[in-house]
């Protein structure tokens, strides 16, 4: 990419301007910023169906007739733990909740605990820690730490999805009810994280927590669909 850095530096007024280096660091941070989806799948899928981009699954979805209806009411803004516990407590709670998401989503404890450790360390750092090391590898910049965290999250979600897809334990333990309970819990966690993001929309930790909860919810929803009896239909989710 071209850069106007040479010209900039010649004209820089150190006391009045941010340095190019600092601006570049801000840009790097902006490049890795993520947001909660701006659309809802429900609306998008309707458009895709109208476009004929989604195959009519009427003849294939023959498994469910029981409707799963999660809580559609968002948590009242300003109520509950999200509002009352304060910024740092909220981060710690988000971390703890992410631990929960990891456990229920993947049951891949070794890998999950690795991520949990990373998140806990990140939280520790965000509350005043001076440095972060993961598996003996020191980070050289906030950007590299964020990239590592995002990569780990993606890997973790893929691994969790794989483990869930190949796990037969829930069927032995009672089939869809386990997934329904999990989904209800994840609904609450997703709603709580969205509420938290309204207060701190740029907080990377809260964003990651939301994404993790949303991904776990998505995986659970698929599992629930697979576990329902033949002939049942999921009418809402």
């Amino acid at each position, binding site marked *: *990419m*071209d850069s*106007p850095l040479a*010209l*900039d530096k010649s004209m*820089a*007024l150190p006391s*009045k*301007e*941010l*340095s*190019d*280096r*600092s*601006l570049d*660091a*801000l*840009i790097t*941070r*902006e*490049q890795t*910023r*993520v*947001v*909660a*989806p*701006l*659309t809802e*799948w429900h*609306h*998008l*899928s309707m*458009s*895709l169906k109208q*476009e*004929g*981009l*989604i*195959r009519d*699954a009427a003849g294939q979805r023959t498994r469910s007739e029981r409707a799963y209806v999660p809580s559609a009411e968002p948590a009242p803004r300003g109520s509950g733990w999200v509002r009352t516990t304060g910024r740092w407590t909220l981060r710690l709670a988000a971390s703890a909740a992410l631990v929960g998401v990891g456990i229920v989503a993947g049951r891949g404890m070794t890998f999950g605990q690795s991520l949990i450790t990373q998140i806990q360390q990140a939280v520790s*750092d965000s509350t005043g*820690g*001076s*440095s*972060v090391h993961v598996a003996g590898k020191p*980070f*050289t*910049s*906030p950007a590299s*730490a964020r990239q590592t965290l995002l990569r780990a999250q*993606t890997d973790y979600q*893929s691994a969790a999805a*794989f483990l869930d897809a190949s796990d037969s334990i829930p069927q032995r333990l009672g089939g869809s009810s386990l997934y329904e309970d999990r989904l209800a819990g994840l609904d609450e966690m997703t709603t709580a994280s969205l509420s938290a993001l309204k207060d701190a929309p*740029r907080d990377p930790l809260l*964003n990651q927590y939301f*994404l993790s909860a*949303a*991904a776990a919810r*998505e995986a659970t929803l*698929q599992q629930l669909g697979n576990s329902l009896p033949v002939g049942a239909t999921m009418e809402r989710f």
Partner: protein
Amino acid sequence: MTTHQTIVQRAVEGDERALRQLWMENAPHIDAVVLRLCGDRDLAADVAQEVWIQIFRALPSYRGDSQFGTWAHRIAVNRTLNALRKVRRIAKVEMDVEDDTAAAPDNPEADTERGIMAESIDQAVKQLSPGARTVFLLHDVEGYTHEEIASELGITTGGSKSQLFKARAKLRRLLAHLSDGFSAGVGQEHGTTI
């Protein structure tokens, strides 16, 4: 065939779960691009819907030569710029390239007096002229070259460079008050707070 390729293949065939999975995995990044370029959440929500329809419409042309996210990113940028043209925002961009007098005054003293120092880079970017803002986002944030930007916006590469220079100069001033705290954190492992 990898798991990801399988998901894409299923999505091409119209499998809703696969389509939804691609959306779930990529929406946080793709929608962030849309939101940055639009600068307005309500408009971005509408555009994001169009962007995702376009991505899925174009899915059969995805050959797997690049990451799906990278491929979708290009579509998102193109579609968003097209949408912005429709609401006549890009018209101002092109006009600004020829005549930048529409931009806010390039006087740091005046900026400070007006109390428009930005608290974050996305706030600061919103204070740029439309032309400078679009060029800055495409070049510095989204990684486009000046040639690509010139082609995309119908301007000259010189115009693109000029807008980028003005954008960065103004951003450095708008974010000047972050300098002390930020410089201390740059290059260190953590501890930066903006």
